[in-house]
């Protein structure tokens, strides 16, 4: 556990360094700049795209960012084989095509893929279980990068371990490429439920809770005080409809990643715009009903219990 790197967001938000002794030289890659970037994405939809044309469709539909990929998770499932970081030329093409932030995925523990993505100038790196893990023991030390990272989690302990490693944003893992939201719901409820239980503990109990969660005590104490993660929490994995996106927000996600759900559907542009609107008006069933009309065919889903264990991405990472 890399305790020396943990700090509380009360320190991040402190004004003590701001007014009097602030450095005159600009500081890049600070925790505030990395986490603050994710704060700007809240209430928004981040869409998987595989071509510059798709990226433009996503931007026109109101996406807050795009995830540049070579294959969407549904195709990674279908094709099998080792899934790696995308081709640099392909990422460049998408960066050129849009003005919104561009994210890209590195394999879990693949330091060099992450270094390459930083060198390419992507705005956020997703250290992702959707790609084939490169290290079965270690995730990437994300403090070592200027580019911020988002990581997946299935429960609070996992989320806090990623934050301790330097993740500036957390998403549920869900079960990507299935069009089935059940795993994302499970992960979101688990994370929120774990936080709720921490809130009820007194200070003496937090030490044992940290041990059970296998997470640094300082972060556990901070979450117990805040009642939420110290970084932005999005949902990912299996969102296919506007109602799915609204559901994830009602369960506490601050925004939504949509992978295969858009460009594996009948009318991507219309569906993408509808999911954006439903994410903003997630608590207004009339809006969600309205935007759910005339969307054409949704992607064909997969039932998770028919997935062989080796094909369950959510179990990758720890």
């Amino acid at each position, binding site marked *: 556990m890399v305790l020396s790197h943990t700090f509380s967001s009360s320190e991040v*938000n*402190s*004004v003590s*360094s*701001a*007014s*009097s002794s*602030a*450095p*005159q*030289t*600009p*500081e*890049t*890659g*600070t925790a*505030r*700049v990395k986490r*603050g*970037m994710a*704060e*700007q*994405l*809240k*209430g*928004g939809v981040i869409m998987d795209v595989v071509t510059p044309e798709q990226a433009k469709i996503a*931007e*026109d*539909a*109101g*996406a*807050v*960012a795009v995830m540049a990929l070579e294959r969407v998770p549904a195709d990674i499932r279908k094709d099998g084989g080792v899934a790696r970081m995308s081709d640099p030329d392909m990422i460049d093409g998408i960066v050129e095509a849009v*003005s*919104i*932030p561009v994210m890209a995925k590195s394999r879990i523990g693949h330091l060099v893929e992450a270094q390459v993505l*930083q060198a390419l*100038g*992507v*705005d*956020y790196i997703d250290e992702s279980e959707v790609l084939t893990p490169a290290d079965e023991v270690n995730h990437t030390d994300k403090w070592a990068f*200027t*580019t*911020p990272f988002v990581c997946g989690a299935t429960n609070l302990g996992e989320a806090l371990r990623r934050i301790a490693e330097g993740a500036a944003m957390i998403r549920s893992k869900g079960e990507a490429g299935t069009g089935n939201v059940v795993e994302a719901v499970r992960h979101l409820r688990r994370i929120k439920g774990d936080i709720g239980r921490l809130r009820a503990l007194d200070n003496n109990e937090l030490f044992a809770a940290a041990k059970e969660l296998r997470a640094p005590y300082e972060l556990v104490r901070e979450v117990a005080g805040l009642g939420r993660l110290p970084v932005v929490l999005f949902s990912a994995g299996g969102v296919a409809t506007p109602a799915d996106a609204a559901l994830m927000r009602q369960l506490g996600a601050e925004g939504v990643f949509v992978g295969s759900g858009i460009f594996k559907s009948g009318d991507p542009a219309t569906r993408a*715009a509808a999911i*954006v*609107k439903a994410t*903003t*008006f997630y608590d207004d069933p009339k809006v969600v009903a309205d935007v759910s009309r005339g969307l054409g065919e949704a992607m064909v889903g997969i039932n998770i219990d028919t997935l062989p264990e080796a094909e369950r991405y959510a179990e990758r990472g720890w």
Partner: protein
Amino acid sequence: MTAPAIGVLALQGDVREHVAALTGAGARAVPVRRPGELAAVDGLVIPGGESTTISKLATAFGLLEPLRERVRAGLPVYGSCAGMIMLADKILDPRSGQETVGGIDMIVRRNAFGRQNESFEAAVEVAGVPGGPVQGVFIRAPWVESIGAAAESIAAYEGHSVAVRQGPLLATAFHPELTGDHRVHALFADMVRAAR
């Protein structure tokens, strides 16, 4: 006199941080997503976020024209980052269909300081904000490319204007809502009180 109600445009972006900063500055903050909610506020904050997304949602949900009308009628509005872009009369190379509310006589360049890897923090002196410089958090931030006679630049960084005031309108390229320092929001709350 009751505290003025200051809306925070809650279509997308760092709404919670602005609500907290306004509350910290002694104002009453309420989220605004619909024309009826906009009609009920004494001032408005347009938060940081993705300016293309906020623009498209404001258009789709019938907020853009009511916003323009209220700005023309003198509603105090503060915009940070994407909010600054929304308050600009003109943006350089806008995306297709990207509309602004306008109101401040300036041309803004989006993502002017670069991509996320170039995002930075630096101390910035802001005219009208007492107590020393504020910590400017610049995230894929815009800058003011040029400014008209009606508007006044109140902060600069490396030769570029990064905060502007024009009557009851205030805009910053940086994010004071991310710092826990509420002085910029206190300045805006004073502007709202003065306009009542």
